[in-house]
């Protein structure tokens, strides 16, 4: 399991990355995350929505209500240009952390086991 703090920190780039692949709605986003992480990353489902709300307020995503095929209203989220830039920034940061970790742990046999 990934710790709560790490999960919270990674939520934003995760959502933005998923949205980079095309607009999506909350339920689907959660399903994608679950799928990708193989259950390692799990939130209380409801907690995604305040985060999405925050992203919208910060201008990283835009939203629109659409009617589904079953006639139900769904709120769709699209990534904005600002969101893309934010994501790139995030990716750089995550990758640099990642490379440092790799350097630190790469030759450590204890880690590999």
């Amino acid at each position: 399991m990934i710790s709560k703090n790490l999960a919270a920190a990674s939520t934003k780039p995760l959502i933005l990355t998923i949205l980079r692949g095309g607009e999506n709605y909350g339920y689907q986003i959660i399903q994608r995350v679950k799928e990708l992480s193989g259950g390692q990353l799990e939130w209380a489902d409801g907690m995604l929505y305040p985060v999405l709300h925050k992203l919208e307020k910060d201008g990283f995503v835009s939203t629109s209500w659409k009617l589904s095929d079953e006639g139900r209203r769904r709120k769709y989220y699209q990534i904005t240009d600002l969101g893309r830039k934010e994501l790139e920034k995030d990716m750089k940061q995550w990758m640099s952390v990642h490379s440092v970790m790799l350097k630190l742990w790469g030759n450590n046999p204890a880690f590999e086991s």
Partner: protein
Amino acid sequence: MFNLEKEIKKWKISLRKNQSLEDGYIAELESHLRDEIEQKVALGESEEAAFNEAKNSIGNSENLAGEYFKSDTISISGRPPWETPFWMPELVWNYVKVALRNIKRHKGYSFINIVGLSLGIACVLIISLMINYELSYDDFHEKKDRIYRVYTEINRPSGTMKMAPVMFPLAPEAKNIPEIEHAVRISESTKSVAYSEKIFFERISFADPEYLDVFTIELKSGNKNSVLKNPNSIIISEKIALKYFGERDPVGESFKIDNATLYNITGVFKDYPENSHKRMNLIASISSLNENNYARFSKWTSFGNDYTYILIKPGMDPKVARDKIENLVDSKLQEEWKQRYEMQIQPLKDIHFSTFLTYEFAKVIPVAYLYVFGTIAIFILIIACINFINLSTARSAKRNKEVGIRKVVGAGKFQLVKQFLSESFILTFISFLLALVIIYVIIPEVNNLVKTNILISDLLNWKFALIIFAVLFLTSLIAGGYPAFIIASVKPALVLKNSLIKSNKGYSLRSLLVIFQFAIASFLIIGTFTVFDQLDYMLNKELGFNKDEIIVLSIDDEELMKNPEPFKRSLLNNSSISGLTFASGSPASGSSWTDNIKPVDKIDDEKLHTQVLVVDYDFFKTFGIDIISGRSFSKNFLTDENEAMIINQTAAKKLGLQNPIGTKIEYWGDKVASVVGIVEDIHYGSLREEIWPVIFILNPTGNKYLSIKINTANSTETIDFIKEKLGEFSPGFPFDFYFMNEEFEKFYKAEMSIGKLLTYSTFFAILISCIGMLGLVSFLTEQKSKEIGVRKVLGASAGTIVTILSKQFIKWVIIANIIVIPLAFYFAEYWLDNFAYRTEVNYYIFITTIVVSIFITLATVAYHSLKAALSNPVNSLKYE
């Protein structure tokens, strides 16, 4: 049947209750919920199960709302409005207002609480001030942490004796020890000091010049490095300067000491602070003493009033210095003495509490007294807190409505507890202000009582700020905490429906606390009685002579001593004077010589440490001391002057002699005398000590102490007569006398102070308990007014009603006494065991204590219960 749409609607309504969840958010959550349910149903689950799981997976609505709130708000704390804040400044004012209103509305109870608490707080602070004062002894010496005093431990086969004096020649030799920066001596003696026509006996301290480097003494005039350098130099305190010279500068003048030697006054120093273990007034250069005028000058096995302090070099180990002093002394002693003398050191700050040393010249108190009074202070505060607890819990019902309303409009239990705690804090704070006033008024009285020099400004330092804060905080927490929980746990529905009318909540706790209060009060009463019993015993015990009729004069005139007969005869011509005797000491004078004696045929190790009194023919007659066997000194035996000795019973017993009369005894090194008589034991000193073995040696001429037996009926005239005659026979010497009984009373000053302090503490403890009881009884009668009314209607007399109301309290008092008496007995016995001669713990004390406490209780309860008993039942039974 499960209806999905209805459940979803209910769920939405529950979400909507939270103001942070807007409709848009809820719509999105609903869409999520429906997706999830659809999926689960597709996998074969029932609608109901799917709904519950989906609902759970969305999570707790409050957390969710909190997250939404965080992203919406700009407030820093991020606390959603539906959570109660920890700190609500708007409410504080309300708390203060309600508290003040409550104080005002219930004047009686507030008065009781505030007076009780302020007395309690005042007691604690005053006693803390006293303890602080005792602990501040010698703090004014800048090098106090490096100063140690050397003392002597004497090991004899009969036991070990520890004493403050050390060998006179020790200090100059100890200076060479590398760990020691300075070693200084104080050598004390009383001498007559004269300047022109002014002449008094004064205590003179001879000191090494470095004394002024070791101790912090402020010289008003004179140079620190030179004032004590030359022989026959003396520096004096401002007090002495004023006494002899008034406003004039004494430096350059000289004192005639012992009517013989002139001492130059080289400086004046500021008076020692009161909290100094030793306060000196005249310090003379130690170089004034030499082989010819000072017997102990180079003696390593002879002890007198010679004390030594050492200043350890910074960072050096005092233990090493001690070991080296021990080795130094051993190297000076003959082989057989080496084991006998053991040198020890004690830090300067310990001297004030070193009650274990004999021949102590410092002002000492037992450290246990600090603990005792600290405990008493805390007990008194607890008594005051108990009043608060009892009254608040008893009256908690009165505030049920307020609590109910507060709870209905949203106050949580914890919030209410905070409210009531802040109320008790306000009360405590008001009490504290009142306590300051009490302290201000009482401090001069305390200083007078226990001879301290406490200032109210002593409270103004961080140590006391901390103590005060702790006292206020703990008091309001202890006093207010329990009632706060009781009051705050009221169920609002019951209160507002009026179905919770009378509650007896906390009744058993209340009785327990009252019993505790009485127990403490009884304990203090017993303690006070015991101390005064012992004092009474010590002051009135038969000492073996009549101390009330004797006055004692110090005589310094050697001419007069050589031929005292004409002087004696002229005094005896006065019919008010029935006897007089010259001796080397006098009971209670504190002055005694000691020696180690042995029968000539015994070995050295069996020497007995005794007091030596050099007396004339009239000593035993004047004091009325009986000769038990043998005879008194007599002019008929010419050999008495050099070869006779009289011993007291204790000496006879300790020497282990079958037939002491005629035994030859070796004393003062090489002198030998035969025992010619045995006298009864008399109490020469404090009753705290066992009677010493004493030997009496004859010297028919004069001696330093002249004891005169007078008729006390006209003592003033008689004293004037003696003064006149002394002026005639011994011109140029001071007339200095004291009444012997007053001198004996001085021995018991500590016990007297303790007795007085205990009396005050007991008084306050009882007063505070009574105040609390008064409050409790007035509340109980109020609560029982209907019962009383019914009883009266049914024919109960006023007496019966009073009995019913007081019975409870009497029961508590008796239980408290039963619990406390064995404990008090044990402590009284323990304390009395400190005295060699002690009274027994009298059983009347316990009976008196029970009677007194029942009487006080009845007196306290009487007013309210009588009022209730005499009231017209119509008033209490009328139903509006």
